[in-house]
Structure formats: C-alpha cells, structure tokens
C-alpha cells in the first residue's frame, strides 16, 4: 500500500485576495491617471482581480506537501 495525495483548493481565499488585488490595481490606475473615476473601469479591475484570484486558487500548480506521508498504525502492524 502507498499513501496518496489529494489537492486542496482555496477558492474563497483566492476571491478575497483577488478583491484586494483588484482594488490595488484600480487605485494604481486611478492614481497614475490611466483611468478616470467616471468609468466602470475601477469596478472592472476589481472583478478581474476576483477572477484571477479564483482561477489561481483553482488551477495554479499545487504545492508539494511539507512533510512526508505519515503511515497509519495499522499499516505499520499489517501482516
């Protein structure tokens, strides 16, 4: 028998960080006068940030486990 890995995803965290990313990008764009406050571009940037965050949280390359697999006691005593 061998230990198997499963992928744990964090779409909620991704969305939250995405909101922060979108707000940050919108502030930079407004401050650098690349966009005007009259348009919906600041809101679009926030939505894009959320999308990036969720997609990253779902489909980014997964991190490897920090620790080696721990065998269960019954595995140690099998046979």
């Amino acid at each position, binding site marked *: 028998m061998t230990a198997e890995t*499963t992928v744990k995803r964090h779409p909620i965290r991704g969305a939250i960080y995405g909101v922060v990313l979108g707000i940050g990008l919108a502030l930079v764009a407004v401050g650098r006068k690349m966009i005007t406050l009259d348009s919906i571009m600041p809101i679009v940037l926030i939505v894009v940030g959320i999308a990036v965050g969720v997609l990253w949280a779902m489909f980014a390359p997964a991190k490897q486990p920090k620790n080696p697999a721990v065998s269960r006691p019954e595995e140690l005593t099998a046979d």
Partner: protein
Amino acid sequence: MSLRRYTLVGGLFGIVSLLLVGFSPRVAAQTDDPCLDNIPDEVPIEDLSLDPAKDGKGGTLPSVLGSGEVAGILAEVYARLPDADGDGFPDLPDDAEGNPDFDALDRLLGEPGVRDISPGENSNVVTIDEDGAVTIQATDALVQQAETQVRRSGCDPGLIAGSGSALSGPCMGMAWSYDKNGLPLDQAADWSFANAPVDLFGDGAGSQAFTSSNPFRVDANGFVIYTGVAGGLELGSGPRDHDWFLQLKLFGTGTTLDAGGDPNGAGENRNAGAVNLRDDLPAAAKINAVLGANGQMEAEGGDFRCVGSGFVDLSGDLDPTLPGVALAAIAAIGLLFNARPALTWGGSK
C-alpha cells in the same frame, strides 16, 4: 461696470468650473432615483451639442462671440484682478509673506442665487431669501434640496459623453487654473453655442479641452477663476427663473454635487467668480485623479437650456498609487503562498 451687479448666472462654463469647490461628499448622496443616478453612458458626444434650429437658441447670444465681445467680458475680470505680467492670466496680489493672497479672490465673487446650495458649508444649506434672511438647513434638507434642484433644472441628465467634453447652449465663458503658488496651470474657453471648449494653455493648447485625454488641470491647493455670459450680451438678457445642477461622474453613474437657482428677475447675464480650492476643498477630496462632471442649467420654462460635460485632472495631496501598490503586493503574496492549491496526504490504499 461693476461685477457686483451680476448674480450667479455666469453660464454653465462657470458651473462646470465650480465642480471642485462643490466636491462635498456630504452632498454626494446616492439614491435610487433614476433622475439622479442613472445617467446613460452611451450618449454620443454629437448628441450633446444643441442645435439652435431644433432646440431653439434660448437667448440672444450670437452663435460665436467676436473678439471684441470676448474682450469686453474679460475686461471686467481684469478690472478686478489685473493681468500684471501680460500672460493672459489675471494675477493675485502677494500677501505680506510674498505668497498669493487668496483673499483677493473675494473681489470676483458674485452673490449666490436664492436657491443655491452653498458648497463646502459644513453639511448645511445656507439659503438667503429675497429679504436677506439667512436660513441654515441640516444635511437631510441639503440632500433633499439638491434633488429638488435637479428636478427643477430639467431632470434630464443624459449628459455623459464618453471621454469627450461639451458646453452647449447660450452659456459661454473662460476659466483660468492656477497652482498653489499662483502660477498659471491651465486655461480653456468656449465662446460658441455648439462647439466644444478649447484648450488655451500648455501642451494641449489649441485642442479640445475638458476631455479625458486632455482634462482641465487643477491643483487641489490652487484656485480657479472663471467668467461667463448667459442668455444674451445685452443687460437684462440673462435667463430668468433658472435652475442648475452639477453631477460627478462616478463609476458609470452620476452623483449630485451641487445645485441651485435664482429667479433673476433683473435678467442679469454675466458672472465672474473664483474657486478657492486650497481653502474650500475638503482634505479628503484632495486626491490625484481625473474626475468627470456633468452640468445643466434650465430657465424660462425650458426655453433656455445649457448642458456641459467634461473632465478635470486634479492634482492633490492624496495619491492612491502607493496604497494601491501595497494592496497589490499583499494580494500577490497571499495568492502565491496562501491561496495556491496544495497537495495533502489524503489517505492510502
């Protein structure tokens, strides 16, 4: 001719220039009223230009003012604030410390309309009736009065013109912008019925002014001087019983900034004024951003109508760039190390 004789009928050009001093978040209350908030964003710039043949002239102003007529209007400003160095910008005198004397701007201030909401009045509406009695209303009343004024002035905001600008109708004028040291920053004028305002100073000189790509530059610690004419050139030809409003274009909607009106029984037709941004603009509003605004004035039962739409490049103390970079960095770190999928030991076979 004394500018004191003129009431606040200085045309929409002056009103649009007033947008910054009217930038009071307290007034900018969002409502569900489509008359106030839902401004169609798809109105093309061409549709903003009023056609004198179709829309009526609403006054006796020529379609385009001649140089002599313009000079006559400007002379009234220069009589109050002389252009000492001949650069075309009225100059503020220096105070005792050698800085621009902002108090001298009071020389240009006209009398407010009886229905005007005073900008920057600490959340209150100051109303002066025809007998000179002063009434101060609370914040709720201010918001309600703003809404009333928007409806009185036509309730037809449809003014947003994408990235363009417009000042259309029998309202014409000029604006000068200065930095905090009193040095010239920008200048624009519109002396025609239907054409867009023109940039007269700096890199964009000669091109259309107040557009998103060539916004009117304003220092949040400086000041703006404006003058305008509405209705006609003759004394007594100004719009009677006029109402106006200003809206800030914000995220695809409009938010009322300021509004007002006046019976103007004497038909006074000119105004010159100053916007003291250093003292009147709230500190929280002194940001670095390009802002858009709409304005409209109607009078005489709708026969008189001016509309305006444009952009202002505000240079202030609050730059959202650094906080934005910090937030983006925090988000990037979080996404990399806290939101990335992770492999976990999920069991065995």
